[in-house]
């Protein structure tokens, strides 16, 4: 099963800000995501990677171009395309178990099934003991596990993740990366993971899509052929990291003279 599950064809996106400025966020983005693939999108901030993910999710409309998911164009959110957000996505007035069962509730599943499924996925993310807790009683890392469990409980074909570990401290982040791989290996969902951390992308992905900015497009696609779990001490790891960081640095080069000028103004 290696056929493309998602095809992004020539996506263009132009925003108009509240001040009336128009911003060209994405230009001619095309990519294919294969079934069971773990793809990371990395790029400098403001390159439109989150916007691209939201367009794939059907939360935003592209100005031009189409996203095709399993042969059908995506025009609105689809529960087969699950999503995990950076933070604050859990309903604070619901218990952890009721949050996990939210998608099943929308699908009008009976309460017994909802309980069973939410228990299963809380077990999967190691939070079975917190089923009756409220989100505010959990740490940031635990909340993101709940968000992942909630997305998986809906049994989507694809999991779109928008910097899900971006707000966590470095240690928790590494723990959750490991955990996500364990879950992915158990479930084998297709994952599209947006991050600005090159290290995170190399640790997780089968393929890394490097984006460039102004307007955002795909600059390069890098296959990572390293066995998991990946060892950060592996020389290949460092080489890849250096290579991608170089690309990103070239991307922000244009900004540098401006920055230097600002610094010299301050000094």
């Amino acid at each position: 099963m290696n056929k493309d599950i998602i095809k992004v064809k020539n996506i263009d996106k132009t925003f108009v800000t509240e001040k009336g400025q128009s911003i060209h966020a994405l230009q001619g983005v095309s990519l294919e995501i294969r079934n069971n693939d773990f793809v990371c999108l990395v790029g400098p901030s403001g390159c439109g990677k989150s916007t691209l993910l939201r367009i794939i999710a059907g939360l935003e409309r592209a100005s031009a171009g189409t996203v095709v998911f399993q042969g059908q164009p995506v025009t609105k959110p689809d529960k087969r395309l699950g999503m995990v957000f950076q933070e604050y996505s859990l309903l604070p007035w619901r218990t952890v178990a009721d949050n996990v069962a939210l998608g099943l509730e929308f699908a009008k599943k009976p309460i017994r099934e909802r309980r069973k499924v939410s228990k299963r996925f809380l077990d999967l993310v190691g939070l079975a003991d917190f089923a009756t807790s409220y989100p505010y009683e959990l740490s940031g890392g635990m909340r993101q596990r709940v968000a992942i469990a909630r997305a998986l409980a809906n049994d989507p074909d694809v999991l779109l993740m928008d910097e899900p570990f971006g707000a966590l401290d470095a240690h928790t982040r590494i723990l959750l990366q490991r955990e996500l791989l364990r879950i992915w290996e158990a479930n084998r969902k297709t994952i599209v993971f947006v991050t600005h951390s090159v290290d995170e992308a190399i640790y997780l992905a089968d393929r890394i899509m490097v984006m460039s900015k102004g307007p955002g497009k795909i600059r390069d696609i890098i296959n990572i052929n390293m066995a998991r779990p990946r060892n950060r001490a592996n020389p290949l790891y460092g080489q890849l990291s250096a290579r991608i960081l170089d690309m990103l640095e070239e991307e922000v080069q244009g900004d540098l003279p401006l920055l230097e000028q600002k610094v010299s103004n301050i000094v």
Partner: protein
Amino acid sequence: MNLKSLYKFAISMLVPLFLFGLWWYMAIQIKNPVILPEVGEVFRLLFNPMTNLISMGSLVSNIIVSLVRVIVGYCLAVLIAIPMGILMGYYSLVYNLLNNFVGLFRPIPPLAWVPLVLAWFGVSSLATLIGLEQGQWYIYLNNVKLSMIFIIFIGAFFPILTSSIYGVHSVNKTLIDSALVLGAEGGEIFRKILLPAAAPSIVNGMRTGLGVAWMCLVAAEMLPGSLSGVGYLITHAYTIARTDIVIAGMISIGLVGALLDYLFRLVEDKKFGWQRLAR
């Protein structure tokens, strides 16, 4: 009761006790019950709330009449302001359509509506509205004049409306997005995301609205056609120089208002604890 809460209670009683002391002392000095009746006089009225006062019925029966009026006007305000506020908060089209209108009417004090309201409704009441002209129910319903309902409605409407708009406006966008990707349809977004997320703010507005509605009471009960209610009792007692009844009525209004507010707070603490703790 432990020592700390006893201490807190003692502290909270200091100012009221001082005021009562001042009142007690001043009343003895002034020796004129029209300017300031003695504390004992007023409390005698408050502790015998079932006795008939100046042939207008008891304090309790008047409070009940007032409560019914406030509740009718207030419920009307709740039923209109909350849906309107939610729609204005969610759809920018509705917001743009109605915002200027609301902004123009909100600053008008409820009392300024009185002449217009009298011209519109006169002395017609709920009984007139449903075409009742006699019987026991006529007596009850005729007490609830449309003009009073309108004044109370105006008072309660705007606080509820603005806090509903604000409540929906400030719902985290990510909550809506995550419900959408989980397969929520339009109605479910309203019922399961927007409404509960905005509920603390809406209920807070309902509490403020009830306070304002209660405050509009005296004004509403001064309107022609009114023959009962605490507000009317106060104005009538004033015309026959019974200041003790005026003060007893004021204290009753204060107590009932505080009690209603307290009930709202209980609900807020019980239901919306998450909001205080969620950050």
